[in-house]
């Protein structure tokens, strides 16, 4: 049986990767003139860390903690374990909110990106008044959701809104409806509003990507008598694909958390047809005439996990794609 060697006699083994890293972190200052001591480091890091801990980390941790309690009373909270999560599984309004958010997150970014690309192509092709149009199309991005929401509530108004007025003026009065009051159309109406607001942002990004395309490829396609449609479908879009994908994912993640526009325009109605997870959390926490913060915290926790899950998934997909491409 072999006996372990006393420590002093053990052969010198090169430190592992982790050990090397730790050695480097905790090395005395003289070992690396660019490094300073921990107290000095903490002094400079503390303000940022305190702000992060107070405004981000603590609320997140507290929300997780709250989700296991019923908190209605000023003095006490009652531990309920996983009861809120079990109730969530049976909550029809929550599932309606999940369905609406999923539809919005999956479909609306397509509309956003397609509109942005279309506008960028118009500018790229050199339409008349391109400078003016570029500013005009980008302006909605600068407006707040409150302004956009109120404006579009007016645009969709049944009696005097622009949409219905236009329909009536071309003899399609029977198509006029209360766009935000009809459960079949309300969500689509909101998605269009959202696309209108963000089209300018997508346009700017697409336009920058279009200008950075290699001109020799486009010129070669023209020499080969490639029509504008084929050029768009077979050359421009494939070359823009990484940009379009990035825009889609950004929009997807943003829409998973959509709140402001919905709250201003419909408050989740009619009949929960525009309820999103964020509006439902807010309603349960601050709008219902009840005081429990535990249940809305449970919804927030579940949705936090879902959003983080998607972020991780997209990261993995992107990494794999990068490896394939390069």
């Amino acid at each position, binding site marked *: 049986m072999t006996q372990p060697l006393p420590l002093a006699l053990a052969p010198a083994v090169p430190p592992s990767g982790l050990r090397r890293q730790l050695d480097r972190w905790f090395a005395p200052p003289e070992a690396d003139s660019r490094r300073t001591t921990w107290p000095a480091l903490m002094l400079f890091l503390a303000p940022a860390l305190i702000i992060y801990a107070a405004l981000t980390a603590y609320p997140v941790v507290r929300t997780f903690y709250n989700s296991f309690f019923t908190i209605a009373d*000023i003095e006490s909270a009652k531990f309920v374990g996983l009861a809120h999560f079990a109730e969530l599984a049976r909550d029809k309004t929550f599932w309606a909110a999940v369905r609406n958010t999923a539809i919005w997150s999956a479909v609306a970014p397509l509309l956003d990106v397609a509109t942005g690309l279309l506008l960028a192509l118009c500018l790229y092709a050199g339409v008349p008044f391109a400078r003016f149009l570029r500013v005009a199309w980008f302006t909605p991005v600068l407006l707040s959701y409150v302004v956009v929401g109120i404006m579009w509530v007016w645009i969709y*108004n049944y009696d005097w809104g622009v949409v219905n007025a236009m329909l009536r003026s071309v003899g399609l009065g029977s198509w006029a409806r209360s766009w935000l009051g009809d459960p079949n159309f309300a969500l689509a109406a909101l998605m269009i509003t959202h696309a209108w607001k963000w089209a300018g942002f997508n346009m700017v990004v697409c336009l920058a990507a279009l200008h950075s395309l290699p001109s020799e490829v486009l010129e070669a396609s023209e020499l080969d008598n490639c029509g504008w449609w084929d050029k768009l479908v077979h050359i421009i879009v494939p070359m823009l694909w990484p940009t379009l994908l990035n825009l889609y994912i950004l929009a997807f993640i943003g829409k998973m958390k959509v709140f402001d526009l919905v709250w201003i325009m419909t408050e989740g109605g*009619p*009949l929960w047809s525009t309820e999103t997870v964020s509006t439902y959390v807010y309603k349960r926490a601050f709008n219902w005439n009840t*005081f429990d*913060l535990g249940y809305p915290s449970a919804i927030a926790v579940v949705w936090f996990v879902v959003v983080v899950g998607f972020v991780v998934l997209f990261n993995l997909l992107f990494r794999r794609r990068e490896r394939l491409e390069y």
Partner: protein
Amino acid sequence: MPTIRPLLLRGTLAVLSGAFCCATLSLPASAQGAGKATEPQTVTMWSHWPDEAAKRGFVEERVKRFEATNTQCKVNLQFIQKSDLYASVKTSVRTGQAPDIFWLEPDEIAFAKSGYLEPLDSHIELKNLEDWARSEWTVNGKVYGLPVEAYTVELYYNKDLIKKLGMEPPASMQMTQAQFTELVKKAAAAGITPLANGVGDRPYPGAYFLQEVLLRKLGPDDYKLLLTGKLSFTDPRVIEAMTWVKQLVDAGAYPKSFSTMKLGESHYYFHTNPGALMFPIASWYTGRAFVAPEKGGQPKGFPLGIMKYPALENSKCPECKTLAVGGSYVMYSRSKNKECAGKLLNSIATVENGTRWLEEVLLQTGIRSDANRMQGIWVLYFKELQERSKGAKFFVGTPLHYLSGKCADTFSQVLNRAFPAGQMSVQDAATQMDAACKAS
């Protein structure tokens, strides 16, 4: 030679202690000397009604008079829209930062049940409050709100338009089911909107008509059972009432813009543009309508009438009517200025102020008052309002005063919004209400 580290540390400490001293010195006197009656106190008061001049004026005047007679108390009065006020207050009561006094309605009684409100029993003269109004704010024998505003649910109408349709309300001012159906159909055929409600920013006005019909059909006892989940919405009497309302809806009773029209807009829709035949709304109609036309009030000489809600045949209580407490003032349980806050509330809770409220706001109040002393140009209106309540059997509280949580949300989405908008069948609406509200 001193190194840079100790210097940095010393500097940081100096800055921190300086900031702490400044922060301490800049604290308001009320916060530093919390609870000391002899020191000046600044009472923070948040009120709704920023756009209702008469109510706002009434409150401002009461505060001004209070400050003049109580020099040790100052009042920081702010008027905030109801939705914003509720959102702020619901957050701030949890963190100890709510105002000393704030505006609340009895459907938010959860504030009291959760310990966020101070009982007013020892602060105000309870004998100056109407018994029914006091009961709306009573939890476990303690009174938590000063019921400044009270109202009945009325059916206003345009006298000229009804004449134009060749109809008149009967002498009793209460139409039968058949007469009312005919009126709605005639108005819709003439291109006049029969009922001018909108639910864009409120969870209740769309249900006013149905709730009044249900109250009369069921009588107060069974109506209360319905609102407390002890009677099913599939009860044949409830279905009968809902079926009739659905017939009216299908006949075009409500505006097409019903779902998005806001409360303030619905007033304007009724009396000015485009003009509607009737307006089922609470008697606080006056707050928005009895101001100058250029500020959104009804036109001068507007032919305003008030009729009773129609009753279904075989209604158990045709004379029944909803009476409710509206805007009230409550005190925060963690207030540091309870003495001044209590004095302020007590100064408002007098018979004299109750009568002033009637005169100035032309609306009922939960504070005792003397309507016979009323004067002014709107006396005739107020007499008509009283006339419509003569012989009435009052049911105290609106549905939202009884419903909470999921049930209240379903009421708002289904009975307030989708059902009167014609988006749901009677059976669907009843089933959804039962699923959310029925006590197991």
